[in-house]
């Protein structure tokens, strides 16, 4: 536990002693704003908002923002340690592998969570404009947060396998895109045209989009939460295994 806490603290403070944190947070907030308010996208004031004060247009574009922004954080998680040689330091300190893996991951996830929490003026705005269902909004934040966590876990796992941040970034975007698109209706209808229903359901079962939308609609189904939690767990397990394999090779 001592090792976990030390790694977590070091990692999290690591974001704030470099420009990484500030650039990321600013870019995230600006893009969130653009997507939410722009008429061609979220149309916060437009017809898709139906004159209602809620945050549906705000959450709708989170998956697509995360698709690029989360791999930008996760790419350096391990690739940087491999490149600078600090992985040797970390691995020879008396910290169990799980504590290093989970500690680094948790710090990155919490950092993404901080960026998400800084969108609170949106929440204040809708509460000022009208009388939204704050339960649904809370569910939206929860969904957005676990989605970020799932992307981060996939990115961390890929970062562990390479020394190159560029490779880590590109591969993470592609894999995350795969998980997102699995639930995108054009893709599903394309698969539907030739594959049996069972396959379509399996593919859409892995869809981040479907699970995310289910949670952010305000219906917190245990299955959706279990899906994300077990996916994160699996990715971190693979992450640890990749590190162990590197030790043995």
């Amino acid at each position: 536990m001592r090792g976990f806490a030390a790694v977590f603290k070091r990692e999290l403070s690591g974001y704030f002693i470099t420009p990484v944190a500030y650039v990321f947070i600013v870019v995230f907030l600006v893009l969130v704003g653009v997507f939410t308010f722009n008429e061609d996208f979220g149309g916060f004031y437009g017809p898709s908002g139906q004159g209602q004060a809620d945050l549906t247009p705000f959450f709708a574009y989170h998956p697509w923002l995360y698709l690029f922004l989360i791999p930008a954080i996760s790419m350096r998680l391990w690739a940087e340690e491999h490149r600078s040689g600090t992985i040797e330091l970390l691995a020879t300190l008396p910290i169990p592998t799980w504590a290093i893996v989970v500690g680094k991951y948790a710090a990155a996830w919490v950092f993404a969570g901080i960026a998400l929490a800084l969108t609170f003026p949106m929440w204040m705005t809708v509460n000022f404009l009208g009388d939204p269902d704050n339960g649904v909004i809370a569910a939206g934040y929860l969904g957005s947060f676990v989605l970020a966590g799932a992307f981060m876990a996939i990115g961390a796992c890929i970062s562990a396998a390479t020394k190159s941040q560029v490779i880590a970034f590109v591969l993470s975007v592609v894999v995350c895109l795969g998980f997102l698109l699995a639930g995108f209706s054009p893709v599903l209808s394309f698969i539907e045209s030739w594959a049996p229903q069972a396959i379509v359901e399996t593919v859409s079962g892995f869809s981040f989009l479907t699970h995310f939308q289910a949670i952010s609609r305000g219906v917190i189904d245990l299955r959706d939460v279990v899906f994300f939690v077990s996916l994160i767990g699996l990715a971190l397990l693979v992450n640890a295994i990749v590190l162990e394999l590197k030790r043995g090779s």
Partner: protein
Amino acid sequence: MIELRKLSKRFGPIVAVDDVSLEVRPGEVLGFLGPNGAGKSTTMKMVTGFLRPTSGTAIVDGHDVQTEPMAVKSKIGYLPEGAPAYPDMTPESYLKFIAEVRGLKGRKRRERIDEVVALVHLEGVMRQPIETLSKGYKRRVGLAQAILHDPKILILDEPTDGLDPNQKYEVRQLIRQMAGQGESRKLIVLSTHILEEVEAVCTRAVVIARGRVVADDTPAALQARSRVHNAVVLGVRGDGAGLAEALAELSQVEAVEQLDGQRETCRLRVIPRDHQLIVQEVRELAMAKGLQIEEIRVEAGRLDEVFRTITLGGAS
């Protein structure tokens, strides 16, 4: 105590470390010598639990690094090759992080950090990002990290590589200091390819080549293997006509070599048979010839020559 048991490491078809067995005891400062790529770093990486051996194992203070890695890691202070550290951190925050991992808390932590910082002279740079520090300071940050928890066992991979002569001297002083103190004496293993370092700080030298131990002795004994061990260098005024021939005829003398002298001096190296001490005989002969001796000394032997013979000799 460190015990290597038939330690081997293969990287695909390449055998990096080949069946190395070795015992190191507290109080010993073991110099791990060998050409680049001989397997020094790989061996250290296995002992510290970073790499998994292909076969064999290492026992550190009674704990097997394979089955009890946490116990081993908490006993060892390790300076990896190149002294990696987080470049964005300051030495202050970095050492705090290490201290926390090592279980040092509160006042004890502050005191120990101050102590170590004073020991390696980091006072002036504690709040500068590590990436802006010079090579010498970075190395000292790495050393501070390794000795922070006052480990009984220190493993230092090329601790003086890239340092200037003054910094090298300081690091060696520090190593000697840590090895020497009675109760708190440590077991230190350091790798180097600088031979003078072995003479300066080590009590034992292990030479490794192509993954195998090819010599294991005290630095002095290794030196004694040199061809020129106990050879006498003699310088006389004048051209020293006939001196070389006369010396060569002595029964204890194996060979006489002409060294380049200054104007009006003649310098010779007299190599004895079986490394006997012949300085008396040489002096008497020169004086009998009525020559003025300007220089006379006995050579201890050259470690670099021994090193070359051992590490290349095995190849043929």
